[in-house]
């Protein structure tokens, strides 16, 4: 003999999930609604955040947590410029945000002065999907320039989304993007997902997306008298 097999059955991402739960509790206690925005590099996350701020700020008080693999903080600066309380996280080369990084960023924000936090994840269509950050909704931004086959090639990202924003629709006339094929792939993986088609260039569709987000962000707020 000399050996024995021990049953473990323990989730490897447990440590992350614990911190995520703490983040969620903290946000809930402060009455702040938070979303995790994910996409491939350049799909338009920061552009969408800018448009969202334009549509909702200052009635909805918005914070932005921006994760990037380096110290380059221009996206957070774009958010601050557009009126957000913005924090930049340097992931030190890490390809996705993890719950403990968001915990640190939350500590740097004044939650009592916020209704909504938008977390801009690292531009990457694979890795961020596996890491719960403790937010309330996961928003995947796709853009028509990426090709319509992406849901079929990156199923985990599309599968975990609560909301899908299809961006850059102003470019549709110049591309062979098959919207129907794209949406069929999305629905196969994720029948419940809420879809918005927008252009951050022309502003088309931004109204519907912002209205959805405003409703979520203000749902748990006591009415403020101004």
């Amino acid at each position, binding site marked *: 003999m*000399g*050996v024995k097999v021990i049953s473990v059955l*323990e989730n*490897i991402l447990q440590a992350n999930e614990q911190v995520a739960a703490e983040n969620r509790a903290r946000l809930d206690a402060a009455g702040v609604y938070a979303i995790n925005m994910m996409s491939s590099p350049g799909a338009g996350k920061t552009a969408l955040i800018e448009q969202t701020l334009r549509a909702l700020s200052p009635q909805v008080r918005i914070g932005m947590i921006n994760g990037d693999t380096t110290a380059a903080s221009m996206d957070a600066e774009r958010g601050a410029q557009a009126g957000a309380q913005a924090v930049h996280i340097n992931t030190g080369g*890490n390809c996705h945000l993890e719950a403990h990084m968001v915990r640190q960023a939350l500590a740097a924000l004044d939650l009592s002065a916020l209704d909504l936090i938008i977390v801009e994840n690292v531009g990457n269509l694979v890795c961020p999907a*596996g890491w719960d950050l403790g937010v309330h909704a996961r928003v995947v931004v796709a853009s028509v320039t990426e090709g319509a086959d992406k849901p079929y090639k990156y199923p*985990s990202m599309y599968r975990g989304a609560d909301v899908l924003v299809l961006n850059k629709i102003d470019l549709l006339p110049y591309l062979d993007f098959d919207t129907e094929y794209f949406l069929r792939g999305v629905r196969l993986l994720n029948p419940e997902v809420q879809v918005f088609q927008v252009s951050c260039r022309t502003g088309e569709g931004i109204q519907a997306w912002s209205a959805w987000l405003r409703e979520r962000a203000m749902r748990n707020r006591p009415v403020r008298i101004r």
Partner: protein
Amino acid sequence: MHELPVTQHILEIVLRHAEQANASRVTDIYLVIGQLSSFIDESIQFYWDALSRGTQAEGARLHFERVAAEVLCQVCGVRSPLAEIGQGCPRCGSLRVKVVAGEEFYVRAIRVQTADEVERGV
């Protein structure tokens, strides 16, 4: 890249369970990884060799059990591989399917030697 923190978590879990079992050495680790979770065996192995050095789990063999992604049709109840549903459920054509396998990511078991057994020279 993200296999580094993940491998750290695996090591923590393994060492904790080894200690609870009074083990002196861990020889094998059985990991279950779904096809939809984005982790690469070779990369985990690479970090494992470095991270486990000097611990009770140094030199332990990692075994990867891969679980294929499968969907369950919400209309007719048939289960099929995710790869085969490009046009909908292969039986009834419905687009209403739900992923039911392929997202696993856990340590299933470890094989250890216990202290007394080592003392007995087994």
